């Protein structure tokens, strides 16, 4: 390729050559030359095979220009074409060759005509998309079941359908030097705080990366605490969750090609929330929340506390319990720590194996895990029976909070290591480290553990419990610019 940037010239043949040069060795580029039989004007359309919908090209592009009888060959016929002839939903006249390439790569069709140094980009995007389905990781009992797909426009439409206000803004950006991926910021003007929005925009602009294939690429670039195991953004696949968060003043970030949508700023307590919480009776929802918080504490603590009680502080175990643990440990060849560590590792291996394999095989893995390993290990007294219960409780409670699945594994082993060295003292030390770390985290200026230390009802109304909706008279103050929900009676200062 020569160094000078190619330009669109007046000659159709030259233009065709230019495009062909750029797309050398790329056989998906389709070129179709046509000539109007009534007035002899020559046209050429370009599109990329598979990205463009051939039905649109046939019916809405080729047919109008070939059947046109009135067009005269003058220098401005291209704008006449765009406004009067072509009947695609978009027909933009573009002059720059870079724009031509971008439009082509997006799946649009480019129309060149004779004696014209402009071209028309016609919307003809039409590739196969996945249907809207219920996301398997975020199933709900009640409430909307649709989930995002890989297509950005579909995703945006799903949000727009839920929030029909002119204040809902979609702001597009392009990230990725090679992939030119479209990124969309979505927020409600007047609710989202400008300083957060500006920070996000400037951070996204600063990103220099080859490609964005999933929201996680963006998330890691935005993260202010790159070494922390906690993410300071939330991800979801459900439009109703995103809409709910946008309504609280948060900003959603969508990426073309990923069904996961990121919302920010986020709080730790959001991991304990499920979209069901807002669709179920608030009593039930509050119980669910408390269960999830309890489950989080259990899943990181149970192995560590069990280990410290059994091998350091036997005097703290009630006598009958100690006796039954004592009798079941008879003949177990491993130290308690090793026994616990190996079983937990085994569980993680089984879980990881189950995630990756196809459905039917996944079931056989769980049978192998539960029956063969569990029962056989106890039968052979390789492990004691209470240990299976401990690991079982740990495993089940970890399923209560799927969004923290990776984090709890690290925390669990961290606490287990500490308590294997120092007993309960080590466990408490580890918990302190975790709590201090959590309280030092900030998500785009908002403390990660915000409101969890408050005792005011209006502040904790949507944290440990889910208060009735009529009680939520204020939006979270730290998130939204305008925190009164006037429609349900929020007045005065909160």
């Amino acid at each position, binding site marked *: 390729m020569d160094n000078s940037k190619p330009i669109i010239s007046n000659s159709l043949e030259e233009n065709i050559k230019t495009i062909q040069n750029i797309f050398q060795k790329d056989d998906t580029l389709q070129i179709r030359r046509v000539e109007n039989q009534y007035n002899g004007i020559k046209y050429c359309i370009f599109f990329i095979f598979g990205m463009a919908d051939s039905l649109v090209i046939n019916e809405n592009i080729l047919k109008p220009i070939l059947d046109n009888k009135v067009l005269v060959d003058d220098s401005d016929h291209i704008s006449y074409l765009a406004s009067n002839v072509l009947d695609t939903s978009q027909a933009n006249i573009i002059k720059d060759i870079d724009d031509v390439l971008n439009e082509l790569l997006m799946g649009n069709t480019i129309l060149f005509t004779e004696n014209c140094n402009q071209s028309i980009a016609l919307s003809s995007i039409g590739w196969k998309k996945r249907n809207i389905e219920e996301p398997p990781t975020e199933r709900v009992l009640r409430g909307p079941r649709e989930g995002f797909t890989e297509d950005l426009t579909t995703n945006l439409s799903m949000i727009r359908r839920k929030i029909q206000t002119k204040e809902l803004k979609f702001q597009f950006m392009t990230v990725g030097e090679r992939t030119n991926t479209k990124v969309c910021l979505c927020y409600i003007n007047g609710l989202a705080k400008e300083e957060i929005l500006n920070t996000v925009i400037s951070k996204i602009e600063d990103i220099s990366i080859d490609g964005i294939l999933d929201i996680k690429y963006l998330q890691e670039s935005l993260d202010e605490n790159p070494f922390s195991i906690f993410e300071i953004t939330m991800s979801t696949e459900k439009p109703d969750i995103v809409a709910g968060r946008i309504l609280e003043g948060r900003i959603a970030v969508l990426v073309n090609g990923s069904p996961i949508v990121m919302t920010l700023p986020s709080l730790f307590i959001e991991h304990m929330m499920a979209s069901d919480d807002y669709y179920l009776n608030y009593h039930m929802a509050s119980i669910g929340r408390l269960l999830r918080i309890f489950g989080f504490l259990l899943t990181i603590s149970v192995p560590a506390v069990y280990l410290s009680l059994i091998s350091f502080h*036997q005097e703290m175990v009630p006598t009958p319990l*100690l*006796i039954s643990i*004592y009798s079941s440990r008879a003949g*177990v060849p491993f130290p*308690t720590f090793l026994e616990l560590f190996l079983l937990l590792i085994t569980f993680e291996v089984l879980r990881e194996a189950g995630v990756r394999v196809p459905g039917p095989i996944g079931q056989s893995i769980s049978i192998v895990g539960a029956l063969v390993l569990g029962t056989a290990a106890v039968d052979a007294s390789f492990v004691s029976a209470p240990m299976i219960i401990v690991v079982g409780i740990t495993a089940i409670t970890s399923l209560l909070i799927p969004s923290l699945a990776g984090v709890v594994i690290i925390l669990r082993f961290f606490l287990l290591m500490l308590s294997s060295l120092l007993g309960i*003292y080590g466990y408490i030390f580890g918990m302190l480290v975790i709590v201090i770390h959590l309280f030092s985290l900030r998500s785009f200026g908002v403390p990660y553990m915000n409101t969890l230390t408050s005792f005011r009802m209006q502040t904790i109304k949507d944290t440990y419990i889910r208060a009735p909706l009529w009680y939520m008279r204020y939006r979270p103050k730290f998130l939204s610019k305008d925190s009164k929900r006037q429609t349900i009676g929020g007045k005065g200062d909160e």
Partner: protein
Amino acid sequence: MNRYIIFLIVIFLCLSLSGCWNYHELDDFYIVAGMSVDKAKDGELFNVAVEVINSEETNLKPNIESQVIEAKGVSIFDAVRDIIKISAKKLYWSHATTIIISDDVAREGILPILDWVSRDQEPRLNMDVFISREKTAKELLSTITFPTVIHSFELEHMVTESKDYIITPIIKVYELTNEFGVPKIHSVLPAVQVVPTSKGMSNRISSGAVFKGDKLIGYLEEDNILPYLFMKNKVNGGLLRVINKDFPQDKIILEIFESKTKIKPAFSDKDMSLDLEISTSVNIGELNTKTNIDYLSKDGRKILRKEAEENLEADIQKVFKTVQEEFEIDIFGFGNEIRKKHPQIWKTIEKDWDTIFQELKLNIKCNIDFRNSGHFSKPIEVLR
């Protein structure tokens, strides 16, 4: 960067060089349930038997059994350490509940036992202390047990879980050592004997063992325990027997819910007396009458109340007199009440308290409050 590396090294050394503080595997020791202390036959030595929980691996079913290991030593600690030579595993004392002391050891003094139990870091101070009325204390560890296979836990179960139903002077190690520290107070410990059951011999909490200082001097018989507890303000429950003195064939059993005894010292020029104000609430548990008196009618209730109060008062006076004459020491803690309420007077009489106690008079005022009469409001009639 260097600082981080040094920091990491410091953390690593702290964790690894300190070793695993207090780390011991569960199966490296025996859990001790209780101990008994006897005199060895050859005089000076103690014979300590320890009941440990042994577990045998049998087809997944948790199977625990009691095992008694015995050793001799010049002191308790000496003997306890000697047990490891037999058991191979270390003994773990934090879950021990029971100390049984034989009669002959108790008569020489129980302080050496309490000293080790309180001084060592593992045994708990809330262990229960019992005195064996059988020949040895060890045999109580090998009787039949009902609530659990472990003999020591049976006695502990009696005095903790069932303390509202049985009448016994419960005392823990720390209470005992506290009482030793109060001048002129003497303790009563529960005594245990063996009774036959259909399966064999089993333990039974019976009388109270009276201590002067740390030495056993005699036993308070079973019938005297309840009046003793009334005087000590330690009644949690139990049954009150009422026998109408005009019609001794009428026996009424009252179930005690709660009771409170207020002790007020009263001084006069010549002598000293104590006012005991006992308020007890009861339930009519059993109405075993042969006469035609309706104890539930308005007049009958008055009679019942009067009889019950008089009965209780007479019982207490009787036990008080027995203690004054037989043991000649204050086992009720009356001296302590005077010390708390009139510390100045106590200072002058402390020296002579034992003699004053023998002349002491009790003015007892019982107030029995009937809560209800059970499911029936009348005696069951037999019309034949």
